[in-house]
């Protein structure tokens, strides 16, 4: 939109202000990228270490990032299906079944919980939830389904990769619910009325509406995965932090964020540790960036659908 009346002075000031602020933000971004890349390049180009091995012992110069990477991916793969199983029904319950003020109150509770500091959930997890989950979910799963490799070992402590995934799921359900709910409410009323007019039950209408917003659900999955993958406090307090790779989810394992938290204090002792941790951060950033941009792209596509 062009300036209709030439107010030259104020428009120069505006340009200067915008320019300065863009410069400020770009500086932060470039400095960030510079530190990440320059710090990690030392270990990436180091010839005598293999970053993708499964051996981790800084005292022997072994810095394999495979186990934390697998741990991070495993914890997300476990958590996201649980998140979906609970958040989609919650959206339907809030929008379709709850009426009037109850629906509004539930909306607020979901929003409130979605932004709750994760350290609070991590602490609750450590204080009693992990033991409950061990006694009421993990042990029964092990007892009755131990022919499935995932559940084949007995949970020895409350802190293991399965617990971390469950508690991450608990902390993510409200967030995902809020994302899916916004898309669900965007469906035009006329479409919903058309569905009811052909004599469908409420559950069938809900099913149709959910299938209409599939792109939004996929983008919610991407955003939630990025959130779960980069979450630090819950995994570092609850995943158990052991360099073990196992097909059983009741084993304590380590993830990239908890690797950084647990090892950064020693980074002055071992020569390459600092750089290796930056490399692990760079890997995490790359994955999270890809997930976020894919999610944004899908959201944009959905806007086109809803607008058209």
């Amino acid at each position, binding site marked *: *939109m062009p300036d209709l009346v030439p*107010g030259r002075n104020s428009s120069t000031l505006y340009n200067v202000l915008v320019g300065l602020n863009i410069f400020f933000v770009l500086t*932060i971004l470039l*400095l*960030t990228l510079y530190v990440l890349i320059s710090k990690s390049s030392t270990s990436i180009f180091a010839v005598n270490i293999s970053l993708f091995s499964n051996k981790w012992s800084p005292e022997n110069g072994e810095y394999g990032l495979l186990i934390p990477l697998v741990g991070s991916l495993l914890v997300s793969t476990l958590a996201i299906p649980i998140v979906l199983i609970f958040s989609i*029904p919650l959206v339907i319950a809030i929008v379709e079944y709850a009426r009037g003020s109850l629906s509004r109150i539930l909306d607020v509770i979901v929003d409130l919980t979605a932004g709750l500091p994760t350290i609070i959930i*991590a*602490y609750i997890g450590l204080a009693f939830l992990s033991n409950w989950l061990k006694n009421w979910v993990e042990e029964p799963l092990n007892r009755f389904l131990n022919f499935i490799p995932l559940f084949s070992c007995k949970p020895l402590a409350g802190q293991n990769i399965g617990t971390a995934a469950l508690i991450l799921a608990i902390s993510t359900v409200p967030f995902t619910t809020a994302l899916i709910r916004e898309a669900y409410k965007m469906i035009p009323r006329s479409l919903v009325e058309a569905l009811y007019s052909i004599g469908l039950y409420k*559950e069938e209408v809900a099913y149709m509406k959910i299938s209409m917003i599939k792109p939004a659900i996929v983008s919610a999955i991407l955003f939630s995965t990025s959130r779960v993958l980069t979450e630090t406090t819950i995994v570092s307090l609850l995943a158990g932090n052991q360099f073990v790779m196992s097909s059983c989810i009741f084993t304590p394992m380590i993830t990239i*964020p908890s690797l950084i938290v647990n090892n950064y204090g020693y980074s002055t002792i071992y020569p390459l540790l600092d750089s290796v941790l930056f490399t692990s951060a760079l890997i995490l950033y790359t994955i999270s960036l890809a997930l976020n941009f894919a999610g944004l792209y899908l959201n944009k596509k959905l806007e086109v659908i809803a607008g058209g």
Partner: protein
Amino acid sequence: MVSLRFIKVLAIRLTLAILSIISLAVILLIHVSILVNGLRIALLNGFNLLTGTPPLPTESMPLGGVGPSLVGSLLTSGLAILISTPVSIILGFFLVEHRGSRFVGLVRAAFQSLYGLPTITISLIVYTLLVIPMRTQSLLAGSISLLIVALPMELTYFENVFSSIPLTYKEAGYSIGLGRLGLLTRVVLGISKSGLASALTLTLARVMGETAPVLFTIGNALTSYHTSLFQPSSTITTLIFMLASSPFQVQFDFAWGAVLTLYLVYLFLFTASKLVRGVEL
């Protein structure tokens, strides 16, 4: 005769009911457990919870307070928001007013790249850029970490607020001869002030709850009030992290008090942000 379709619908209805009740129950359990356990510690300590210092491992009762960390939390997130708000106002307006241009797309991509930065990575980076040269963890380093979290978040909120302003208001502004800056200060800010206030409060609430970005940068000063920007401090979130990792039952138990304090501050900011939006035009 009951049709197969009706049985299916009933089965779906039952599944939906069970799953949504479980999710709601877990959500409520979180809030109730914070209040019940937190109040136990709060009643034990009274007003001292807000001003005192955390208990030592040798004490037999979870007596103490979160004073220094509370001050650290308020100062770091306050400073971060103080810097990020003017930047977000100007760039939010810029992104909306020049929508469609390639340069705007570039600036937006820069912001979204900051948004994708894992919070623990922010801690590593600020540690390298500020803590090592300054030779100390500090309130300033903590604020900068939180600024990197707050900027993209607040900008996204502000951009939404600005783009919800009807075009007619902007056209009216331009038609009486206002430039872009005049439009921003005299028309747009006036119309969107409640939306902006709400977004600002929400950002503050979210930023104050962050742990990972400040974990390596703010320091571990749990027992003394430091208000100089260049001295180490702590936040409630790092305090909870420290207490939660403590092997001593007294300290672990006392964390409920810190959890309650953080929860109440968050609840206050969240409510304020909802109430402010209620008075929107």
